[in-house]
């Protein structure tokens, strides 16, 4: 176990934000979900007891009749904002005094840094470069992510959970978002920072980052892997067709599963009914595509498969 190495990575000034992330994200996830579960419990009580439902103010926060339903921004909100400002300033000052912003050698095009890493918030995409062609990882995905995020409000047909934490009422939504945000974004960044060493090789935490490390990896395209290499004649047309079909199949299969999920219980069915076709299809597309990433990652890391769909112009 090479603690020194671990410390080196963690202590690198530019990695501090990620280290912070390691603590902040779990905390706030827990913090949010705790709220959600409280509300769920409240909801459960209300549903079981219609009388209460009539009278209750329907929040987990204490409330007595006579208390104002609204409070003045000044001072009640202002003072909090004020406090927040002070604390942030304090944090920032201390951070800046204790840690120097990195400044390395003057730029030198002839001497590549190893590993050469993008700014940490793009590490997710850089990690994707391992599994996908640049045009997917570097261009298509960001675009899809942005669009995907932007359309969320328009495809979420669930009228519940507007303005309060809840899990029960929005299981699918929350789970899939956490999957995307935590699983695909934050996790990838952490991998990119702590796991990916020189030559963008996979180093388990505590493994020494050795520039001279050698690993044996042969990545084959799907159609070359047994048993397909017998089936698919080695000409681009059949190869392309084969890959295309496989991909299509995946979309169908996954799409079916997603559909099952969306119509899993009677509540989700209710929501499903509310959806327009457009909404439904968009959800399907993004959902399936998103799930596609871990699938591909798994294919690569476990089965060493490079591409599924190979064409003369692009590969997937």
């Amino acid at each position: 176990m090479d603690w020194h190495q671990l410390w080196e990575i963690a202590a690198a000034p530019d990695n501090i934000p990620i280290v912070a992330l390691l603590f902040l994200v779990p905390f706030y996830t827990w913090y949010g979900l705790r709220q959600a579960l409280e509300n769920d419990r409240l909801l459960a009580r209300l549903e079981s007891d219609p009388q209460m439902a009539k009278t209750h103010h329907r929040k987990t926060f204490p409330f007595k009749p006579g208390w104002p339903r609204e409070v003045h921004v000044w001072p009640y909100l202002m003072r909090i904002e004020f406090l927040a400002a002070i604390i942030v300033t304090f944090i920032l000052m201390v951070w800046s005094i204790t840690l120097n912003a990195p400044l390395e050698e003057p730029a030198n095009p002839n001497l590549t840094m190893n590993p050469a890493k993008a700014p940490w918030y793009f590490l997710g995409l850089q990690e994707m470069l391992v599994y996908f062609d640049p045009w997917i990882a570097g261009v298509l995905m960001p675009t899809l992510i942005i669009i995907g995020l932007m359309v969320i409000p328009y495809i979420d047909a669930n009228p519940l959970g507007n303005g309060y934490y809840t899990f029960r009422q929005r299981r699918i939504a929350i789970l899939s978002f956490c999957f995307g945000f935590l699983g695909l974004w934050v996790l990838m960044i952490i991998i990119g920072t702590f796991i990916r060493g020189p030559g963008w090789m996979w180093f388990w935490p505590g493994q020494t980052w050795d520039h001279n490390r050698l690993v044996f990896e042969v990545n084959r395209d799907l159609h070359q892997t047994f048993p397909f290499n017998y089936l698919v004649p080695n000409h681009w047309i059949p190869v392309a067709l084969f890959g295309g079909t496989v991909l299509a199949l995946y979309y169908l299969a996954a799409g079916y599963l997603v559909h099952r999920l969306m119509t899993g219980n009677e509540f989700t069915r209710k929501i499903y009914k509310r959806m327009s076709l457009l909404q439904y299809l968009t959800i399907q597309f993004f959902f399936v595509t998103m799930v596609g990433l871990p699938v591909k990652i798994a294919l690569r890391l476990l089965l060493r498969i490079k591409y599924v769909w190979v064409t003369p112009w692009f590969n997937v």
Partner: protein
Amino acid sequence: MAEENKQKPNNQQEKKALTALLDQTKEQAKALKQRAVEEAKTYAEPEKTQLYRSIFRVKHDDQPRNRALSVLSNVFFHLHPAKINRDAVRYAYTWGMGGITFYVFLVLTVTGVLLMFYYHPTKVQAFRDILYLEHDVPFGKLLRNMHRWGAHLMVITVWLHMFRVFLTGSYKTPREFNWSIGVILLVLTLLLSFTGYLLPDDQLGFWAITVGTSMARATPLLGHEGPFGPQLGMTPYNDVRFALLGGSIVDANALLRSYIWHCIALPLVAAVFMGVHFWRVRKDGGISGPAPVVMESEVKEPRPGPTPVIMKPSGMRES
């Protein structure tokens, strides 16, 4: 007068007149003094002065009305409504991330502007200017560090803000559009940080940008390594990456471009979108909650048949 009286010392009447005159002047002096004192007293309460009122317009005591006015009548505060949901002040609900992000943005603006006073975006000087800031400019190091770390902090807070908004479902009707703007702001934040990365012109920035931009080569159609790019005659000298860097490699032009993007273009755009974002927050009815929980049973049936997203927000309680 005094002189006169010197010239004719022995004249009685003159004397009298003189004394009278003296008394009179004394009187006047006293009166003046009185007045001065009284006026001085009034300044003990500056908020009563015309000057003060002209500036603050309202009297600040905790009469509810004035509390409201003090917010409404202040250009900085009137982003807020006069009153808000009693529970919205609870940290547990908002996490305060939006506000913090905005605050950090302000800090970044100030520190950034200050740094610009010493920074030349040229290959020769950029690196030296950083050294200069670190070693010669008082508080230069502190400022630079604050700027850098502030940038990182902002990225984090933006994410957490988004996370919170999602968890509370605050993007739902009527706030759909504001969420989209939020996403754009997120992207802008990342771009701001990214463009700033190159400016010290050191190995770290150089290679980060090289790696970062080299993805652009692979843009479909527009990149010289992207699908159908070559077929469309894309070369390292006319593709989208070239447009970003102003060259086929990260060099003087790239430095200058990222400088302009970082210091002028992006901040402006971001500021505009923020304006819209905040404005929408108010117009969409303040922050979304904490709202009373709604039971499934209370969900109204939508009117039958498909409901096009574009036209009508799908089944929301009109209340």
